[in-house]
């Protein structure tokens, strides 16, 4: 049995290495398709565009959803696509400091669909929409920012602290 399975595996692996250029082409094609869809459809509160000529690195923006404490706040993110995209998840990081229970001080995001729940069906649009909804609905049980998770239950205080942080980290830097 083992020998038989081995025989089956070999051509598949060879094929994978041989067609890596072709794979790269299909990743580019899919990213172009995503960009086209993103440009032609209206997505309130989210946007993304490639960073220069490199189609494998995008810069996205997310606005906090209405009715949440993040309303009127805007965050920038970097989206990095692996060569195995969409079979492997893209990496998303906040570049704007974000005070949130599921975002750490380096901008790393803890979101299941970017890790073990990733599916090839997800794209830039769905990922950004998920992060936007994560802003208003954090997962308090597995926080990266414990301070934010503890404060979340008191929405008044949370909003006050959030705005103060945003003012300090973002607005001051924009002016300077």
């Amino acid at each position, binding site marked *: 049995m083992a020998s038989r399975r081995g025989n089956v595996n070999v051509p*598949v692996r060879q*094929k994978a290495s041989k067609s890596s250029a072709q794979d790269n082409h299909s990743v580019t094609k899919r990213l172009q398709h995503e960009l086209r869809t993103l440009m*032609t459809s209206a997505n309130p509160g989210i946007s993304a565009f490639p960073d220069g000529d490199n189609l494998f690195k995008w810069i996205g923006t997310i606005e906090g959803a209405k009715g949440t404490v993040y309303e009127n706040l805007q965050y920038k993110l970097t989206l990095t696509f692996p060569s*195995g995209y969409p079979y492997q998840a893209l990496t998303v990081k906040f570049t704007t400091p974000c005070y949130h229970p599921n975002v750490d001080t380096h901008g790393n995001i803890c*979101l299941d669909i970017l890790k073990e729940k990733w599916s090839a*069906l997800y794209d830039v649009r*769905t990922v950004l929409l*998920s992060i936007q*909804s994560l802003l208003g609905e954090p997962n308090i049980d597995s926080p990266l920012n414990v301070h934010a998770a503890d404060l979340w239950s008191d929405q008044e205080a949370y909003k006050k602290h959030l705005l103060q942080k945003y003012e300090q980290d973002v607005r001051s830097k924009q002016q300077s």
Partner: protein
Amino acid sequence: MSAETTSPNNNSQPNGDGGTPSEDSAGTYECNICLETANDPVVSMCGHLFCWPCLHQWLETRRQRQTCPVCKAGISKDKVIPIYGRGNPNPQDPREKLPPRPPGQRTEPEGSGAFPNFGFGGDGGFQFSFGIGAFPFGIFASTFNFNDGRPAPPAHGSPQEAEEQFLSKVFLWVAIIFIFWLLIA
């Protein structure tokens, strides 16, 4: 979370692709992975359309937990159905492409041949096994077993079949010798 994220995608896909009606109808037959019109199309048991190369790669990247990228239902290579259209839209499409699409499966309608595996030896559906229980005469209870819950016999003419047949014979003779020994002793 995942359910929430997929639903807006599915709902707004037709608007998103927008434009001419022809583009809209093309969206219905887009592969769920590469987002292009499906090439060498296959459909999963849960009804989701993919290019066979795209789905194959998805299954290869996660061998342990193979799930449908759209609805996360269980999915496997043997459980997808290829779709054969009438005309080939791109005539240059090469058939020798790896990996090959799985062949179509045609199951016989129910009712004909109620016991396809019943019978001795006919098509390898009979296997001999031998065991000793706490009581020596237990062997008679466990001597004859018909395919119950065990893996299907290997294909005709394969090395495994020859091997199993050989083992089956060896155990048969061991059993006969043991029974003789019991009778004599």
